[in-house]
């Protein structure tokens, strides 16, 4: 909780144990015409408190759908999801929004909102509005302080009065993360946070995620199609193939040539990163060259 002194107090680490429990989760879109019976089929895994978990897999393997299920945006057909020990179906939307924050995939900003206004929207689930103030719901001191802390942590304070639509991709992604932090969640869900970003911004966002994980004791679940980013950033990975969990474990356990061959159906070269020793994926030599 923020303190009124103007410094950002850090929430205490939650008791260890799993904060997200997914068991036997199956889901399909009503309009799905892929012919596959399930978009997600009997998916089970757990996320421990303070962990950075990556969900990886080929396109169409159900990564983003899984994240939306965790955010409560989609409802599962079978199986259960527990957030902080409570079934997600029993959590009221505003209560869930105070536990879980989602940074969706980038989409075009149509209306000219400033950075400060955008971050303050993250306070929506905490705000009390009603007929007595005609829904005006002024920002309270707490709202301002929490938003400000979120902007300090994501290094967007200097952009407060700029329009979100005028920012670069990396800056915009940091603003979206700041808005999610303003919800004061215990779990942060990120959908492809590094897609479309240049390498310098990718490094920025990676360091930011790690810093938030350390300083705010945030549990992070992120979807990424980039195996190298996932390998460097995540404590553990869940690898999906056609809606099923194919492999779970540390990057060293999941990013292996044999696993990737079964999941992606092609040969890749996996070696060790020269500094971290973590697995690194590259293409084999492209035929036709040399």
């Amino acid at each position: 909780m923020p303190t009124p002194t103007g410094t950002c107090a850090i929430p205490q680490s939650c008791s260890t144990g799993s904060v997200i429990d997914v068991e036997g989760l199956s889901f399909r879109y009503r309009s799905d015409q892929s012919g596959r019976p399930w978009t997600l089929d009997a998916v089970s895994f757990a996320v421990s408190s303070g962990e950075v978990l990556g969900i990886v897999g080929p396109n169409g393997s159900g990564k983003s759908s899984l994240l939306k299920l965790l955010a409560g945006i989609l409802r599962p057909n079978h199986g259960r999801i527990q957030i902080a020990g409570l079934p997600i179906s029993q959590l009221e939307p505003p209560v869930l929004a105070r536990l879980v924050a989602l940074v969706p995939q980038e989409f075009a900003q149509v209306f000219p909102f400033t950075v400060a206004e955008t971050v303050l929207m993250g306070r929506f689930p905490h705000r009390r509005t009603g007929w007595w103030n005609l829904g005006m719901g002024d920002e309270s001191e707490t709202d301002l302080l929490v938003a400000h802390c979120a902007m300090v942590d994501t290094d967007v304070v200097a952009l407060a009065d700029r329009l979100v639509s005028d920012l670069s991709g990396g800056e915009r992604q940091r603003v979206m993360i700041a808005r999610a932090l303003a919800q004061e969640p215990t779990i942060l869900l990120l959908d492809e946070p590094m897609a479309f970003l240049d390498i310098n911004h990718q490094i920025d966002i990676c360091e930011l995620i790690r810093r938030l994980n350390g300083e705010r004791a945030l549990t992070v679940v992120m979807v990424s199609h980039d195996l190298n980013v996932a390998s460097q950033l995540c404590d553990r990975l869940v690898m999906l193939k056609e809606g099923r969990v194919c492999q779970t474990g540390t990057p060293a356990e999941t990013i292996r040539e044999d696993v990737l061959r079964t999941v992606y159906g092609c040969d890749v070269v996996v070696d060790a990163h020269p500094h971290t020793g973590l697995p690194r994926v590259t293409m084999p030599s492209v035929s036709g060259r040399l």
Partner: protein
Amino acid sequence: MANGHVTPSHLPAPSGDLSTTTPVPSLHEMKSQWHRTGAMLTRRRWGLVLTGLLLVSVGVIALCSQFGAVSVQLADVLAVLRHVLTTGSLDVSSLGTAGVIFLQVRLPRVLMGFLVGGALAAVGVTLQALLRNPLADPYVLGVSSGAALGASLAMLLGIGTTVMLLPLLPLFGFIGGLLALVLIYRLAQSQGRLPIYSLLLAGVILNAILTALIMFITSIMEPNRSAGLMAWLMGSLTAPGYPALAVIVIYVAFVSAVLMHKAQVLNVLTQGEETARSLGIDTERVKKQLYALTALITGAVVSVSGMIGFVGMVVPHAVRMMIGSDHRLLLPASALVGGMFLVVSDTIARTIFAPAEIPVGIVTALAGGPFFLYLLLWRKDRMI
């Protein structure tokens, strides 16, 4: 940041106080800076903008009441006001024709124009946030046509001709507008998205079909009634009278209050469906409520003034450029500016060829159409 290797071993040690690494300005400093730079809406800015617009609105109403086929002098207006306030009676025949024209014809017309313009602008703001599209407008999307068809049907059946049945006319407009809105949504939606071009295309087609149906209704009416219907369809504020005004006041006041209550929700809805849901909004329910409200107020307005186009698009767009997107201010400010816009447009419509009048819908379309084209051709970045 110079070191690009991200590993758990490179983590900064968790510290209890961030101010050691980043200077955190005090809450007061930060607040005053945000207020100064306009980074966020403040109660002070809200009050100043709305008070200013309210005062200008009163001025515009007073000024525009003087112009028309018969010119009413400010002295006449003051005489009428003094007479009404001192005697408490609306009978001003003792003050001469100018006074009667002002109180019985000019004033209700100008007030109706203000209400209709304000309501259309508020509908525009709401639709734009709901469809996440700054080009949305009840007229362009065919909601107005749907409401007009509903109201035409009611008129064909003879509803709305007596004072008792007057409040029913907006309900027919509401049903027509709501059906049009549901149709347009179904037509334009593809894979859970509402692309602008399919939205506009669906609007064009729906407008064509609905207009044909309205034309059919006018063609089977008696000629003297159909001429009145045609004039109404082109958008007209001619002599509504106080009972109609009272009905519209009730509809507009109710819908405005609910919309103001939803201003924060509208803000969040502009950020996209997923974000809105992850912030705890039951988007399906809220969207249904807002669509119903939009159709209700459009139905009410169209049933008295016909199809007045582009107010709902031009006004919110211009206001947003000036005061930002926060709906807590954007919604009431757009309503006030929309009211003024229509009052001025109507003044032009009844004076430019005086003593003849042209439908006010022509004036707003000639002012708004080119603006719409400008956005469509040169501001593609703003509309995705």
